[in-house]
């Protein structure tokens, strides 16, 4: 039996290191293994014995793209254990901070990392030569997001102003209002960008996913909500462990996750959009309608458009929050340390991020569990590739390899979060 093998030394435009092996037998992909060989990060063990109040700063180091997500899940989980609720303007500032991260993370992925796949360019540098105005525009949008994070967080990456209970310092009205012109310009740019993204050729591919996201009573979810799915999951986040099990597979340093009794699921911008489109701002809703993205969508390639709609939403929401901002009396809610277990799910740009901490009476962490979105999405990515056999079989090995990489990047995988380049191994089994 002859075997054809392609080795791609660097699968670029993902965050982290991993490899993929695909084995094709005619039109069937008989094996798909996304092998994330990023060394284990050991953050859960690192948290043991440390003060629970250190969780946001320590876990933020898991990711340079989405540190806010780690800070938010850590804060909410520790606050859950301590019986603390953060409301009012502090809650709104956290939401504003998350808007900043969504904007910068989404636009980086859409234009610099993913758009080259749709347009047949090898990299963002080539894209910049053909579409310099789009790349300039995306950098402008990203700058507006970065400015939010820098203003609220003290710096753009790994913000230092976030603490359990709120912030070390909260901004005055004028500081936030200064962001408005940049955000309004970025919102216009993001509308243009979405219209451009919508002109891309989207491969015809759908799967019957179980889409999992938060859903909140009256807002597009970021920090709070129930965990819901398109197949009937509707649970309080405290029930996460009873419904979602993580397990080790031999070929990956990141745990796989599945819904008990059903299997893999997809989390991320498409899942959020599908289940929360009615919670978008009128402008973001209109943008989704304009580009033909509706909640019936099950095409993972069109997740690009969900990201674009969420970018418009995050800009809109940031503007709304700033326009309505009244500085809080206190920068943080006072904490009383006590023993307990706390859990939280928040919406990282790539999907749901679960944290659980067991805290002793001295406030030290006895046990920590962190389930990042890329880890949760791994099996779903493999199942996409397994289902793509007929699409891949008709392509040259080179084109098939590119398409497989394109499909992986639908999920904007953040490999070092979940456990850095991807080496792609593609095998074609010949029929006997």
């Amino acid at each position: 039996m002859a075997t054809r093998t392609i080795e791609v030394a660097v699968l670029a435009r993902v965050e982290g290191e991993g490899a993929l092996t695909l084995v094709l037998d005619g039109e069937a992909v008989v094996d798909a293994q996304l092998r994330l060989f990023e060394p284990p990060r050991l953050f859960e063990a690192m948290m043991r014995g440390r003060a629970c109040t250190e969780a946001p700063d320590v876990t933020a180091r898991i990711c340079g793209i989405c540190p806010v997500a780690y800070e938010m899940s850590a804060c909410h989980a520790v606050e859950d254990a301590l019986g603390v609720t953060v409301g009012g303007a502090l809650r709104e500032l956290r939401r504003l901070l998350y808007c900043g991260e969504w904007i910068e993370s989404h636009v980086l992925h859409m234009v610099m990392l993913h758009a080259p796949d749709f347009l047949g360019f090898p990299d963002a540098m080539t894209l910049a030569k053909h579409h310099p105005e789009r790349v300039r525009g995306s950098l402008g949008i990203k700058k507006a997001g970065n400015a939010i994070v820098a203003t609220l967080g003290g710096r753009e990456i790994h913000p230092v102003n976030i603490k359990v209970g709120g912030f070390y310092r909260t901004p005055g009205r004028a500081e936030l209002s200064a962001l408005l012109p940049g955000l309004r310009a970025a919102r216009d740019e993001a509308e243009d960008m979405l219209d451009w993204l919508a002109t891309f050729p989207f491969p015809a591919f759908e799967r019957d996913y179980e889409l999992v996201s938060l859903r909140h009573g009256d807002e597009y979810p970021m920090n709070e909500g129930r965990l819901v799915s398109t197949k009937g999951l509707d649970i309080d986040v405290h029930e996460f462990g009873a419904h979602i099990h993580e397990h080790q597979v031999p070929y990956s340093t990141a745990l796989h996750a599945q819904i008990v009794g059903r299997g893999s699921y997809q989390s991320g911008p498409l899942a959020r959009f599908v289940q929360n489109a009615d919670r978008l701002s009128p402008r973001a809703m209109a943008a989704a309608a304009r580009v033909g993205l509706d909640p019936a969508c099950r095409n993972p390639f069109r997740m690009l458009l969900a990201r674009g709609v969420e970018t418009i939403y995050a800009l809109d929401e940031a503007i709304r929050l700033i326009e309505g901002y009244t500085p809080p009396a206190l920068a943080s809610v006072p904490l009383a340390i006590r023993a307990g277990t706390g859990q939280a799910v928040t919406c990282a740009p790539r999907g749901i991020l679960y944290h659980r901490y067991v805290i002793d009476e001295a406030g030290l962490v006895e046990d920590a569990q962190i389930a990042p979105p890329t880890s949760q999405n791994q099996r779903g990515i493999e199942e996409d590739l397994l289902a793509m056999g007929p699409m891949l079989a008709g392509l040259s090995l080179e084109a098939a390899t590119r398409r497989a990489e394109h499909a992986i990047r639908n999920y904007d995988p953040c490999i070092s979060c979940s456990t850095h380049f991807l080496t792609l191994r593609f095998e074609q089994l010949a029929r006997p």
Partner: protein
Amino acid sequence: MTAVVVGIGQLAAGDDGVGLVVARALAARGFETRESADASVVLALLEAERRVVLVDAVVDGGASGTVIRLVAGDLASGPTPLSSHGLGVAEALELARTLYGTPIAARVEIVGVAIARPTSTAIGLSPAVAAAVEPAAVLAASLAGGR
């Protein structure tokens, strides 16, 4: 207007942090500085019509501690693709030329400090590289417009 001095590097990678150490030395002398683990900050500064003096560690640049003035064409731009990890200096300058044109991209001066390739995490500079901080700062200051 004096240029912004941008130190690039990673303090936890030993001598790779030399760009940051030089930037801090110049900040203490009143220069406007930025510190970054990658070169994307340069794009924002160029877009804002600023001149930039970039200070970074250089491997294969001679004996450790050698201070060199570089031009963009000196930098190897191998097949290091743009990733979410950030931009390398060569990539940032190429992107700047593409997006903003050669005259704007030419507003970047580069000071390199030769180091041996870091092989493990370490805090602090080796004696040879530490001795290069002052000469690198003096060169960067003269390129930035003095003070």
